[in-house]
């Protein structure tokens, strides 16, 4: 793998031919910023994050010198090799792990500065002792039309028939959809998703991607999601971040310029995908 100190946002517009990729990705210098409007929702600057292996006392660096920012309403995809630290990154952002060096700067709208967070974990993490419906209702505060909202979401996920089943009796794909429904239900301002559409058959996955776009169009959350599927990233994201193997840093960053309203058009996505893919073939060793 090429070692690179710099990456830049290389825009790839839907329909347009991709600009020819340089041999190295120069570092982002705030030129050609993503569809920015104002203050970023979140600025991530992680200097160092590691884990101590309690068995051998060894310290393994997982994230190092990783920084990027997330604009309000922006959809950002993260790609990277298996085990490089993507989940760890999301955990840090969600505030679940404070044992790192670096800084997370929020420019939030809520009273405590942190945005309302929806998290789709890599494993569904539905509570097995609650029914599917209860799992979703749980995260909602005393809204009045709770039940309606949950029903609508379950309907959209194709799970309405299973609403009263205990979560652990659902198939993995169904649980995953349940977890999506849970994260969507709270109308998050920041949506973190860790490989949200795996374990779903192609038609269902596509339908859910469109649902996500629909929701983004309506409530405009910022979305940061991990995926291993470059096609999916191309279709959904405004920007794609590529991570290196651990210690993970951002090796490159690509802006995808497919307008939101045309992202369901497979031909546009396919063309943009071909452009992105050709550039990155062979990037991972």
């Amino acid at each position, binding site marked *: 793998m090429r070692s690179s100190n710099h990456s830049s946002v290389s825009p790839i517009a839907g329909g347009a031919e991709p600009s020819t990729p340089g041999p190295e990705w120069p570092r982002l210098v705030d030129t050609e910023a993503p569809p920015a409007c104002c203050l970023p929702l979140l600025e991530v600057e992680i200097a160092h994050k590691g884990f101590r292996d309690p068995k051998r006392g060894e310290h393994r660096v997982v994230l190092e010198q990783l920084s990027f920012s997330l604009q309000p309403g922006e959809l950002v995809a993260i790609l990277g090799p298996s085990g490089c630290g993507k989940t760890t990154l999301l955990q840090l952002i*969600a505030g679940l792990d404070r044992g790192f060096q670096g800084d997370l700067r929020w420019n939030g709208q809520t009273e405590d500065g942190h945005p309302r967070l*929806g*998290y789709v974990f890599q494993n569904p*993490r539905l509570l097995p002792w*609650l029914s599917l419906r209860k799992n979703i209702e749980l995260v909602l505060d005393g809204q009045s039309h709770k039940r309606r909202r949950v029903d609508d979401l379950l309907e959209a996920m194709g799970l309405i028939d299973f609403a009263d089943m205990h979560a*652990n009796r659902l198939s993995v794909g169904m649980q995953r959809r349940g977890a999506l429904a849970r994260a969507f239900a709270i109308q998050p301002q920041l949506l973190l998703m860790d490989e949200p559409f795996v374990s779903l058959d192609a038609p269902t996955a596509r339908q859910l991607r469109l649902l996500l776009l629909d929701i983004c169009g309506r409530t405009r959350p910022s979305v940061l999601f991990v995926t291993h599927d470059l096609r999916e990233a191309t279709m959904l994201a405004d920007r794609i971040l590529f991570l290196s193997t651990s210690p993970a840093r951002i090796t490159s960053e690509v802006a995808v310029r497919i307008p939101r309203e045309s992202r369901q058009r497979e031909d546009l996505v396919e063309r943009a995908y071909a452009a992105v893919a050709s550039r990155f073939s062979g990037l991972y060793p």
Partner: protein
Amino acid sequence: MSPVMLAAHPLGLRIASALSLLILWQWAAWSYESTLLPPPAAVLDLAWREALDGELLHHLGATLRRVVLAFALAMLIGGTLGVLMGRLRTLDLILDSWLILLLNIPALVVIILAFVWFGLNETTAVMAIALNKIPNVVVILREGARTLDKDYGEMAQSFRLGWRKTLVYVVLPQLLPYFAVAARSGLALIWKIVLVVELLGRNDGVGFMLHTYFQLFDVTGILAYSLSFILIMLVIEYALLQPLERLANRWRR
């Protein structure tokens, strides 16, 4: 893993098992033939007579009241403390040695000291019983709290469930088996301690009566009173604990 064959008649199996116990006893009584092992009928007869003249029910009631009060107290205090100690390492470090002290201090010592310091009254009695049981509950629930699944905790945290919802929907369901253990072994322990308390300084209760019969070496009386109380425990078990547990475990595959 569990065979289904016989599971179709759980009630039948239960009754058969209880009956076989009775038959075993009767047979042993016959072959032993001594007042040191009276037959079931004799015990039943005595229990019946004691129940009729009101004594038995009075003593059972007194003991039951103490058991229930001390149980509720111990579960509440011990449960809270146990969960906290399981989660907060500092608190655990601070209270750990106290806990082991209290856990291993003989019931007798606690009871004597309580009686001596606070007098032989009902409140002291209930307190002394609860104090004997609390460390037990703490130990059980501390262990449970340590095994809580981090995944669910993170879920609760990121969705900002707040402590109340987290407690009720995330933590307690995971602690349920430990509560079941604490309740069941706890009722048994309390009932053992209440006997000592009643022996040492109460005017009524099953322990008081057991002691009286013990002085006379009247095994029939001892059995009549113990079995009556065990009967109450059986009713609590089958009418309350087991249905509750079944309900709470319905989700398990």
